[in-house]
């Protein structure tokens, strides 16, 4: 063939072996052997609704809110930083002044998952230490049957949505 570099010099022996290789359809047998071997390898399929793949710790699923680990109230201090940085404008926060003491508290906190691009930018400016109030959870089953279902209210963000169990 043109353009093909010949590495070994042509001798009678290489010619004969080449002719034999073609005559005995050697490459076809090699192919058949590969597929035959593969049949007995353990499968790599993950049967999705029944089994799921392991997620890496830094996997970014739907953003959710955290409870305070000690007193059980929401950790969010209603600073609106995540709402400001969100490139998709999908976070909508309503807050009011606390009746006593300093600071504000949440009235409502909504994330519109129709717009959210799961970029994780909202986690970076979150000022609460050592845990951030908003975090990227490992929930990734985003499908729903109606548009309202994609707007997650405060309760869903804190407690997670009810996932349907897969039954066989």
């Amino acid at each position, binding site marked *: 063939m043109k353009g093909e570099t010949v590495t070994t010099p042509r001798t009678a022996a290489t010619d004969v072996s080449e002719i034999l290789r073609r005559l005995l359809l050697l490459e*076809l047998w090699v*192919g*058949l052997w*590969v*597929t*035959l071997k*593969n*049949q*007995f*390898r*353990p*499968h*790599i*399929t993950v*049967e999705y609704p029944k089994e799921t793949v392991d997620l890496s710790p830094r996997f970014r699923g739907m953003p959710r809110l955290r409870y305070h680990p000690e007193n059980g109230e929401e950790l969010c201090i209603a600073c609106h930083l995540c709402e400001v940085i969100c490139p998709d404008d999908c976070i909508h926060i309503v807050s009011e002044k606390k009746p006593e003491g300093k600071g504000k508290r949440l009235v409502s906190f909504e994330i519109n998952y129709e717009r959210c691009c799961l970029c994780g930018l909202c986690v970076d400016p979150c000022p609460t230490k050592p845990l951030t109030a908003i975090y990227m959870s490992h929930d990734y089953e985003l499908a729903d049957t109606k548009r309202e279902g994609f707007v997650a209210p405060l309760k869903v963000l804190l407690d997670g949505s009810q996932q349907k169990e897969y039954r066989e």
Partner: protein
Amino acid sequence: MSREFIESVGIPTIQVLIVVMVVPLGVAYLQLVERKVLGFMQVRLAPRRVGWHGLLQPIADALKLMIKEDVIPAKADRFLFTLAPILTVIPALAALAVIPIAGRPFALFGYEVRPWISDINVGLLYLLAISSLGIYGIILGGWASNSKYSLLGALRSSAQMISYEVPLGFALIGAMMLSGSASMVQIVEAQRIAGWWYVAPQFLGFFCYLISALAETNRVPFDLPEAEAELVAGFHTEYSGMKFALFFLAEYTNMIVVSSIVTVLFFGGWLRPFPNVEALVWLENGWLVVGPLVAGLFAGWLLDQKLGTGLRLMFAGGVLGSVLGVALAATDLGGWASFQLPAVSGAFWFFLKVSFFLFLYIWLRGTYPRYRYDQLMSLGWKWLIPLSILNVVGTGLAVLLAA
């Protein structure tokens, strides 16, 4: 009703009904086997949601095809569009009429039953004739659809069939010359008398037939008529529902027919390996050997899949099963294990060989990419036709010199 009438008309009618009922079911499960084997070759799981490991999948598919809407395109030729699938499926089923699945007739309820529907003395010619009739359905279907993809698929199909019909016929002539008969039963009998399967003296013929038959049945790597990458679905692009199912049925029935022809002509039909060696007579009870062997292999393989231990348990199960099987067949458990029925033994060996060739077809599909159109033509005209003519001339000379 006279006894003769029942034996010559009644029993063949029942046999025809059995074939027409059982073959579609067999085809449905052949398709499941194909999906399973292709899946395993690609290191994935094949269908397994419907039933245990997908065992009910063919039933679900058949139900779906029956319920689906049967669309006829507005500008299609309605009559030919409906006729085409019928014209492909009937020759495919009719070809099974001359396939013998066992050697000698046996008695059932006092009547003589022959394990073939009909043994005509031009069986081979009948097969060649009837299998080329199926092409009309494909061509008519492609033309009647009034669609460019269908027409292109049908054109390719006709060109391909014309090219491959010739080496197909020539490849079979060798076996016909050696046995001196065109009747399928006589050909196998001749192999029993000769003491070897015709694949040994007719290897070239077998090779040519296998490749031509692959092209004749439109299977990968010669599935140009329905090349999905180029022609959507070829001649059955516009078909849906039950009409599509008939094309599908015809394709897989043709696979069974072609495998049966290979088995009968080149692999001794219902004969056991080395049919004349007395020391191997326990192979007549072949299912006693192969049954435990397959069971052992399968159980070992299932365990291996579960435990992830490679293939060690599978080999162990196979060795255990084959030892058990040989012991069972050789001792015969005092005459209890074999039913003393040559028909059962014959049918076992016949179906074993046919299943191997069906597997081979799936195996080839899982391995090779599709031929380009000109490569297909050059393979047919420049290689297979000269090779098969060489085979005919060589066999003729050998027969002449031996006589």
